[in-house]
Structures are given as structure tokens and as C-alpha cells.
């Protein structure tokens, strides 16, 4: 095995609706993997299942953090999954809108720091030091992502593309082993998409983080990812390298319909 993420036969039912049907997936360490598929294929549901926001009806999700044992994460509380080393962004941006850019990243340090109520009230030296480290580390990440100039701005005042990048910075602040990006390029213009692509590559190369992304921008998916999984109607219909997947007749059918002219 040896994957960071091993998903075996995960299914998810919402009442009588089967949103996911026995999906398997493996992400190895340091890999960039893309998950694509038409709208409503179940990609975001899959993300919610592996991050434990939903409890999958069947199947198993195993996760192996950088330092640590292989752990079964389905059924765990989502915050513990994050603490284990799986961080995500959201398709419809979910920033803490009324807080500053820096604070958004600082919050994500929560699971890596430990000051409690008494620490907050009496502020001993250790807590002050920890607090300083939180600020420094968060600012460093903002710099890495290129948002440090507006660190005191309110998150909701950032332009759309910057909000998406801030979500990535926030996810990185939890020190993840695996980063899940849900449509990071949605609503971005070509230049922003291009710089996002470089950013994702940089994160993988410099921080040694495996990345699993959902994306509709095909040029980005094809040039960025090493392997691609394709979903349709809750089922996995193809997997492989970008070249393999783009030749797959079932994928072409899913995307272009029965009689492909394009």
C-alpha cells in the first residue's frame, strides 16, 4: 500500500439516493492527484466523506500522516481528522469573513497549539511565546501565498481570487500531510489560474504535501496532475495519467455526450 490516503469501496447514501457508489482511491505521498467529473457527480460528497464531515455509509478511509501510524478516519470527528494532517478548502468559499486575513490563518493553528482558558486569562510567558509564534508562522504563510500586504484587511474585502488563495493558506497552517482543494480555480481569470497552478506545484515541491484536487479547468488539471480519477453519477469511471484519461471513451462520453463531435 504505502499511500497517504487509501479509500476502499466508499459509498454514501442520502436516504434512497446513492451519491457515491463504491469509490476507491489512493494518493501516494508527494503526489498531485485530480478528481474530475461533470457537475453533480459526487466529487464534493467524496471530499466530505474523507474529511469526515459526512460519515460514509459503507467503505473505509485510511490515512497515513507524515509521522504516525495508518489510521482509519471514517467516523472520526472532522476536527480530529484535520489534527491528524488532512486539510481542505471549500468549493463555495468558507472564510471567517469578519475577521482579518491574518486571523483567518491564525485560527487554523488552533490544533497545533495548546493554550487554554487559564493561559488566556493569565498569559504566562509560554503562552505569550506561543502566541507570537502563531502570528509569525501565519504571517510567513501569507507571505508564501502572496497575501501578506493585506494581512490586516478583513477577509471579506479581499478580491475573489485572493480569497481562494487565503483558503489555501489557512489549510496549510494546519501543517497538513494531504491537502484537499475543492475547485481552487473556480471563478479565477486565466492569469490567476496560471499563478495558482504554480502555487500548487510549489506547495507540493517545497512543503512535501500530497495534493488531491477537484477542478473543472481542464488545462490546469491536465498540466498539473500526475494522476486523474474521473467520476460520474457517484461512480468512478476511469483513472490514470492525464494522457490515458483524456483518451478514455467513457470519459469522453461523460463529458461530451453520446455522439461526440468536438
Amino acid at each position, binding site marked *: 500500500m504505502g499511500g497517504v490516503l487509501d479509500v476502499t469501496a466508499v459509498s454514501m447514501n442520502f436516504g434512497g439516493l446513492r451519491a457515491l457508489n463504491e469509490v476507491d482511491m489512493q494518493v501516494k505521498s508527494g503526489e498531485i492527484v485530480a478528481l474530475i467529473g461533470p457537475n453533480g457527480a459526487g466529487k464534493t460528497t467524496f471530499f466530505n466523506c474523507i474529511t469526515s464531515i459526512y460519515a460514509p455509509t459503507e467503505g473505509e478511509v485510511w490515512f497515513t500522516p507524515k509521522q504516525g501510524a495508518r489510521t482509519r478516519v471514517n467516523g472520526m470527528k472532522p476536527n480530529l481528522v484535520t489534527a491528524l494532517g488532512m486539510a481542505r478548502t471549500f468549493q463555495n468559499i468558507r472564510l471567517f469573513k469578519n475577521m482579518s486575513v491574518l486571523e483567518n490563518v491564525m485560527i487554523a493553528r488552533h490544533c497545533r497549539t495548546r493554550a487554554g482558558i487559564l493561559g488566556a486569562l493569565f498569559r504566562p510567558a509560554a503562552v505569550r511565546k506561543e502566541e507570537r509564534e502563531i502570528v509569525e508562522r501565519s504571517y510567513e504563510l501569507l507571505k508564501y501565498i502572496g497575501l501578506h500586504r493585506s494581512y490586516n484587511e*478583513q477577509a471579506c474585502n479581499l478580491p475573489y481570487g485572493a480569497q481562494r488563495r487565503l483558503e489555501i493558506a489557512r489549510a496549510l497552517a494546519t501543517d497538513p500531510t494531504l491537502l484537499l482543494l475543492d475547485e481552487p480555480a473556480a471563478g479565477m481569470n486565466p492569469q490567476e489560474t496560471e499563478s495558482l497552478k504554480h502555487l500548487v506545484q510549489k506547495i507540493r515541491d517545497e512543503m512535501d504535501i500530497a495534493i488531491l484536487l477537484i477542478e473543472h479547468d481542464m488545462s490546469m488539471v491536465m498540466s498539473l496532475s500526475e494522476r486523474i480519477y474521473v467520476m460520474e453519477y457517484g461512480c468512478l469511471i476511469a483513472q490514470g495519467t492525464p494522457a490515458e484519461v483524456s483518451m478514455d471513451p467513457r470519459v469522453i462520453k461523460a463529458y461530451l455526450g453520446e455522439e461526440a463531435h468536438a
Partner: protein
Amino acid sequence: MQELKKSVLVSLWFMFLTFPIMVVRVVEKSVVLRWENLAWIGIGSFVLSFVWRWALRRKEMGRAASREGANNPGLMAQLAGANPALVRAGSALLLVAFAVIPWLVTTYQTNILISFMLYVILGLGLNVIVGIAGLLFLGHAAFYAIGAYSYALLNQYFGLGFWVALPVGGIVASLAGVALAFPVLRLRGDYLAIVTLGFGEIVRLVLENWSSLTGGPSGVSNIPRPGLMNMELSVAGANIYIYYIVFVLAVITIVAVSRLKDSRIGRALQALREDEIACEAMGIDRVGVKLMAFGLGTAWAGFAGVVFAAKTTFINPASFTFFESAIILSIVVLGGMGSNLGVIMGSAFLVLLPEYMRAFSEYRMILFAAAMVLMMVFRPEGLIPATGRRYEVNDPELAASGEGR
């Protein structure tokens, strides 16, 4: 011109509407028409409508200006952010003023100030739950009652003194808050408000009906005032002593709550307010943080309750009705949710003003309502809106480029 026309129309409409009640009067089978009333209503509504329109226009202009200027902090923000030394000097001056006041004014005035500071403590406690953690909470008076009754009953049955009861009352209220939080973990917004309102009533009804323990509606009397090293204090002296206890407690509350807000826990609470799902996805234990919010908020109500019982020496359930919760919530909302200074101003507005304007006490509710309407229109975020903390980072590059703000 347009505005004039509109105001004339408004006044005509009002004259028409109020004609039957203000002008027509039946005196012994004959109808008297009081035309002078009509004129007064016309003039009054014309002026009011004109002023109203002018104020609205001004507000719109202000909003447009702030949009253009991007970052145009309000007056209070300027005051607060202007000069830390000045702010420190100002608060030191205020502290000294509050410390000497009881020696200069009558017992009655001291009493008013004590209740003002009690509401500051209550408001700040509720602010942790409503303002910082964003959980709409309508049962704060119940925890005030729990604090007060813990002192009263522990004293009556076990002879516990004030200084032992003070922490015990806070802890009991805090535990009760956590106990309430368990069943309501899944609720948000309106639903949470209704459940907490219900809880407040349950506590009050239990206190009212468990006569064998709590004395029922007649309450508990002869609660001892706090003693000062076994000295017998006169009523006025005891009052001043309690004034200082509340004063110190209020200062402690202010410091504690603002420290809490700026800490790792406080950030987690704010994250909970902003977005629960993102909050969990960022590794924050939603359940733990929610319990913490309730426990931390209600503890202050417990402390305030103990002091209240000691101050009045007599408590009964009638002091802890829903009206009390509503007042405390209004203090928080009117002052500015999440803003500590706002809560202080809010309780000054809602506790001190009614006391000093006893002459208008008949119109209190009307003025209350008018104040609320005006606030919703002109300052929807409260008297002093909460400002996020600004962090300083040590980055020479950013400073060099001159863009750090």
C-alpha cells in the same frame, strides 16, 4: 424641493390619520372640532419628517464617502486607535474617578452605580456568548439567579460567607451553563434563542415553586452583606464596600474578557460564530468550544448574582424574569456585539439614563422603542461596533515597501 414636497405629504397624511382621535371630540352630544390640534400635528410631523430625511441622507452620504475612502475608520475607532498612551491615560483617569466617586455622592447614587457595574459584568459575560461566539442566548437572567441563590441558600443552610460563595456561585453558574449547552449543541439562531428562553423560565419557575428549599415567591431574606475583617459596617459603609467589590470585579471582568477575546480560545469562538463547518475543518472541536462559550459566559452572571444577593440582602424570583434577560441582551446589542467598550456604553445607556431621567419615567418604554428604532437605522452594529484586533508583524521588507497598514 423634492424633500419639502415629501414632508408636506407626510404631514398631510398624518393629519388625516390622527383626525378622528386628535381633532374630533364628543362633548355631551355635541361634536367639538379642535382645529388647533390639527395644526400642531401638521407642523410636528412636517418637522420630524424633514429631520428624518436629512439624517438618512447624511447617513447615505457617509456610507458613500467611506466606500470611496476605502478605509475611513469611525470616530470611536479613531479615538481608540489614535494613541495608545492617550487611551491608557484616559482609562487610568476613569479608574481613579470611579474609585473616589462613592465618597462624594449619596448612598442612592452609589446604589445606581453598583447596579450599573453589575450590568456591565452581566453584559460582558453575555457578550462572550452572543457577541464573540455568535450564539443567540436569551436566558442570561437564569444564571444571574443561580449565582444569587447559590449564595443565599449556601448561607442559609451551611452558613457560608460571601467570599467563599463568590467563587462557588460563579462555578455553579458556569456548570449550569455547560449543562444547558449539552442538549442545545445542535441548535443555532432562533431555535437556540427559544430553548435558552425556556431554560430561563424553567429556572425561575423552579425557584418560585420549590418552596421548601428556596422559600418560593417570598424568596430568601436576611442575606448577610460581606464583612470587612469582622468590622460592623453601617448601611452606607457596607454599600461603599460593596461598591468597591463590584468595581474590582467589573475591572477584572473587563480585563479577563478582553484577554479571552484575543487568545487562541477567543479566536476559536469567533471562528464558531463565522462558520461552523469551516471551523471544524480547521481542527477546532466544535462541541468543546461551544461548551466553553457557555461556561465562560455564564460564570460572570454567577459572580454578579452573588454580589447582587449580598447587596440587596433579599432576593426572590421576581428579580430574574425574562425582562432581565432581555435588558442584558439589549445592552449587548445596543452597545455593539463583541465590543467590550460598547457593552459598557450600552449598560450606561440602559441602566444609568432611566435612573437619571426619572422625570420621564412614564414615557420610558416609548423612549426605549424610539432609541431602538433609531439605532437600527443609524447604527445597526451598535453604539460602538466591535473592531477586529490589528496585529503588528515584524517584517522589514513590508515596512520598506511602505504598504503595511
